[in-house]
């Protein structure tokens, strides 16, 4: 390395970096991965997870059209579906399937080396794949949540419209969508990193599920080291624990919404930085994987 290069400051190096090329390459990685994620049979599981509740809510709406429906009750049911099904199961397992497959799947299919043999910084591969995974999961689960919301209130006629457009409904929808996006980013980053550390990321994924699942009964401090805690703080309608769960639940001090949003984004960014560091030392040895 020449002395003039050594004398170059980090700021100069950043300014001289080929940002436009990096952006193009990252978007190309994301484009290739998006096609793989969305237009394949493998995505069927995620579609099923996302749209089954929407189908159930649609059926509920169809049946209730001829009977009396309770708006407050249905709002609580929707909150329950969102918190207990979408956040704890669907988005969790959907992200597990989508994000762990981004790298580990390519190792299983012995095709990761094609990326490694291209003139692309490995960090850009991580970011491009993460963008594709995030876009896929947000699209699938965001649509699922939106359809649940739509079917829940559309059959109520004027009362439903009143609630959505002149009441708190639209705000709740935005909150649900925001939480879905943050859940996809948070879980996605964790699963992407796990897939770069473990040959079989399912086992640590189950441990992660357990940790997130028992979050409510953990001491207040430990609750804060989880994604669910921050997501729950952002949900528009609280779901009170009942039965045995209520007995063990520890009510932690809530955090402000902006703290939860920024905290989750920072967590996702930190995990991504770790994944970028990890990928630099990733070797292709399919026979041992």
């Amino acid at each position, binding site marked *: 390395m020449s002395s003039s290069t050594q004398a170059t400051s980090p700021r100069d190096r950043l300014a001289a970096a080929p940002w436009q090329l990096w952006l193009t390459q990252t978007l*190309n990685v994301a484009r*290739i991965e998006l096609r*793989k994620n969305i*237009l394949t049979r493998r995505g069927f599981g995620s579609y099923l997870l996302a749209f089954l509740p929407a189908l159930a809510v649609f059926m509920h709406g169809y049946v209730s059209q001829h009977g009396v429906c309770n708006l407050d009750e249905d709002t609580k049911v929707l909150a329950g579906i969102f918190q207990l099904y979408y956040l704890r199961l669907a988005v969790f397992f959907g992200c597990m399937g989508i994000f762990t497959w981004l790298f580990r799947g390519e190792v299983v*299919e012995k*095709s990761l080396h094609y990326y*490694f043999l*291209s003139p692309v910084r490995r960090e850009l591969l991580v970011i491009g794949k993460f963008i594709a995974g995030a876009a896929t999961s947000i699209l699938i689960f965001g649509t699922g949540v939106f359809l649940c919301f739509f079917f829940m209130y559309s059959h109520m006629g004027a009362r439903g419209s009143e609630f959505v457009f002149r009441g708190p409904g639209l705000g709740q929808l935005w909150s649900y969508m925001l939480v879905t996006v943050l859940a996809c980013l948070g879980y996605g980053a964790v699963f992407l990193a796990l897939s770069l550390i473990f040959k079989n990321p399912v086992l640590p994924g189950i441990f992660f599920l357990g940790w997130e699942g028992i979050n409510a009964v953990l001491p207040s401090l430990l609750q804060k080291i989880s994604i669910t805690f921050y997501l729950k703080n952002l949900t528009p309608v609280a779901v009170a624990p009942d039965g045995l769960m209520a007995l063990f639940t520890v009510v932690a001090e809530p955090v402000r919404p902006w703290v939860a949003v920024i905290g989750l984004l920072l967590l996702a960014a930190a995990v991504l930085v770790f994944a970028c560091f990890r990928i630099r030392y990733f070797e292709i040895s399919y026979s041992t994987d």
Partner: protein
Amino acid sequence: MSEHIIFENVSKFYGEVLGVNRVNLSLAPGITSLVGPNGSGKTTLMNLVTGLIFPTHGRIQVAGVSPNDPEQMFRRVGYCTQFDSFPRGATGWDFVYNSLRLHGLTHAQAKSLAEEAIARVNLTEAAPRKVAGYSKGMRQRIRLAQAIAHHPTILVLDEPLNGLDPLARAETIALFQALGKEGLHVIISSHILEEVDRISDSVVLMSSGYVVAEGQIRDVRREVKDHPMQILVRCSNPGLLASHVFAQNHVVEGKVNPDGKGILVRTRDADEFYLLLNKIASDGLLNIDAVAPADDDVNSIYQYLIGSDGGTA
């Protein structure tokens, strides 16, 4: 900047299993063949050059660039691996085109280069079909197209002739020769020694993770002192030639050809033998029609140094 591919004391261990050990090489531009039995470390060496794996010890430089810098390296290097696998659902066209888009090329640039590379391996008609439906030879060729599509100056080919039928093999070898003539630095590993021999400028012989010999084929052959060189001489009077050569200490064997028009000599000092032949010819004792080394090919060197069983001889 050096155009050589340099290995400085490179070792690679997979846990406790040896991949390659203490490899010191400086590969000059031209066509270089890596030859050795299965498990000798050829693929490990190629994966090290291309940064798919990292050395446990030592340092590698590819034309002045470290394999840890893919952004710089793969603008100049193409690698056709031995892995017979492809991105899920890809057509031949997608495979080549997408890899070019990863270079940051525009659609038009990538399209033009992809068309050129696919045509070069004769797969234009099959390109829109899914790779999963290709024959093994077609898969091999589309991988080759992907490796050469961005016009690399260094091409690394791991067993590129595997699965090709004789016609495709001949075409592929002709392509390698053409690429070599265009000034590309080509590194090939292959079990098909006769064909490697035809196209290689130099050879690296590997066995059990070690480099057994390296250099130009004739130079390597000269270094193999344990096995006398075989030289075929076509002449008008092989009996007379035999009487002269048997008087030399360095000649260990002479065998008259069954057609009676030549003699196969085994000698420990080829240079001395050639001097003797010159003297015989200049004295007008007999007419020499042709002189040719009979065992300075890759196959013979392989047999002498490594043996047919793959162990170091």
